[in-house]
C-alpha cells in the first residue's frame, strides 16, 4: 500500500473518521483529568517531601 493509498483509505473508509473523533476526544479527556489531578496535588505533603524530583 503506497502512502497515497493509505491516505485515501483513512479519509474514505466509513468508520475510520469516527474512530479518529473518538481518539481525539479520549486523549482530551485523559489530558484534562491529569491536569486536574496535578493542580489539586499542588502543596500537598507528597510534593513537599520530594523537592528533588520537581527540580529535575
Amino acid at each position: 500500500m503506497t502512502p497515497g493509498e493509505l491516505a485515501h483509505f483513512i479519509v474514505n473508509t466509513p468508520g475510520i473518521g469516527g474512530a479518529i473523533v473518538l481518539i481525539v476526544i479520549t486523549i482530551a479527556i485523559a489530558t484534562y483529568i491529569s491536569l486536574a489531578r496535578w493542580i489539586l496535588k499542588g502543596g500537598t505533603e507528597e510534593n513537599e517531601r520530594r523537592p528533588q524530583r520537581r527540580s529535575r
Partner: protein
Amino acid sequence: MKTAWHPENTYESDILAPVKKATAVDWWLWIGLLAVVLAGLAAWVRQYILGLGVTGMNRPVYWGVYLTDFVFFIGLAHSGTFISAILRVAGQSWRAPLTRAAEAITLFSLPFGVASILIDMGRVDRLLNVIVYGRFQSPLLWDFTAVSLYLLSSVVFFYFSLLPDIALCRDRLMDVPGWKHRMYEILALGWSGHPEQYHRLEKVLDGMAVFMTMVVVTVHTVVSWVFGMTIQPGWHTALIGPFFLLGAIFSGTAAVVIVLAILRKVYHLENVLPVTLFNSLRKLLITFTLGWIYMIIAEFLTTFYGNLPEEMEVFWQKFTGDFALIFWAMVILVFIVPLAIFVFRGKNSIPWMVTASVLVNIGMWLERYIVIIPTETRPRLLYELVQGRYTPTWTEWVITASMFAGLFLLYAVFTRLFPIIPLWETAETLEHEMEPLKRRPRRFGERKASA
C-alpha cells in the same frame, strides 16, 4: 473540617449575595422559562413522530431555521472563549470580572448549538451513525470533532477557573441548604487554597487559553466549511471562515454586554462591574462592527465583479429580491444603528450599549439566515429551473424559542448557585493581599523557600 485559604476580596459579600437565596421572582421566572422549554420539547416530539414535513424545509431548501440557530448558538458561545482565553493570552487584566459571565454564555449556548443539529437531523436515533459510518472526508465529521472538543474543553476551562470559588462557597456559605453545601463539597474536589495550587491553576489556565484560542478559531471555521466546502453560490468562498469567525466573536461580545448589564442591575453589582468595563467592550465592539462591514464589502464586491450568473442570481436575491427586506434589516441592525450608538452614545451609557448589543444579536441571527437560505433557493446546477421557497412553520419557531428559553433558564439558575463574578481572579486586580501568589519564584529552589 479545615477551611481553605482564600484571597481577600472587598466585594466578596456583594458577589456572594445572589448565591445565598433565590427569590420568589426567580422562581416565577424559572417556571415561565421552563414552560417555554417544555412547549418546545412537545413540538420536537411531534416533529419526531410526524417527520420533518412539519417544518418549512423542502426541496431544495434542506437547511432552515435550525441551522441558523446552530450557527448562531455556536457563535454566541465564542464570547466566553474570546473574553477569557484570547484576552487572557493578550494580557488584558480588565477582563477579569467579566470572565465567568462570558464563559457561562459559552457553556450554556453550546449545548443548544449541538441540539439544533440533532433537531435538524429529524432521526436523532441515527446520531451514532456519524461515528460508526463517519468518513473523514466529510466536513460534517470535522464539525462533529471540533464542536465536541470545544464543548469538552469549554466545560473543563470553566470548571478549573471556578474551583477556588466553589471552595470559597463551601467554606463561607454555612447557612445554605444542606444539598447545596454538599454540592460545593463534592465539586470543590478538596481544594485547599495552597499557593502552589493557585500557581498551578494559573499555569494550566494560561496554557489552556492558548489552546482554547486555537480551538475557537478552528470551530467556527469548520462550522463555516460545512457550507463553504460545497460549491454552492454564496457559500464557496475562502472568506467564509474568517467571516463566520468575526461574526461569532462580534455577536458573542455583544451578548456579554447584555448579560453583564442585567447582572449588574438585578444583583446590584455596580461596584464590581463599573461602567469602565462597558467602555472597554465598546471599543472592541466598534472594531468588530467595522471589521464586519469590511468582510461584507469584500465578499459582495468580489462576487459582483466576478459576475458569474449563478452567483449573481443569489446576489440579487439578497440585494433586491425575495430576501432584500431581511438583508437590509441585517445591515441596519448589525452595522448602521449599532455603530452610530457605539460611537456617539455608548460611552459611559450602559442602556445605549445594551440597546445596540440587542440589535447586533438580532441582526446577526438574520445574517446567519441570509447566508444559509438564499443560496438554497437558487442552487448552482438548477438555478434557472428551481425557484425554491422557504417559510418557517410554527414548529420551528416554538423549538427556537424554547432553546433560547433554555439558555436563559440555565444561566439564571447558575447565577443562583455559583458566584458569577470570579472572586479569586478579581482579588488579584483589586489591590489586596495575595502575597503567596505574588511571590512567584523563577527557580524551584526559590519556590520552596517562599512556600
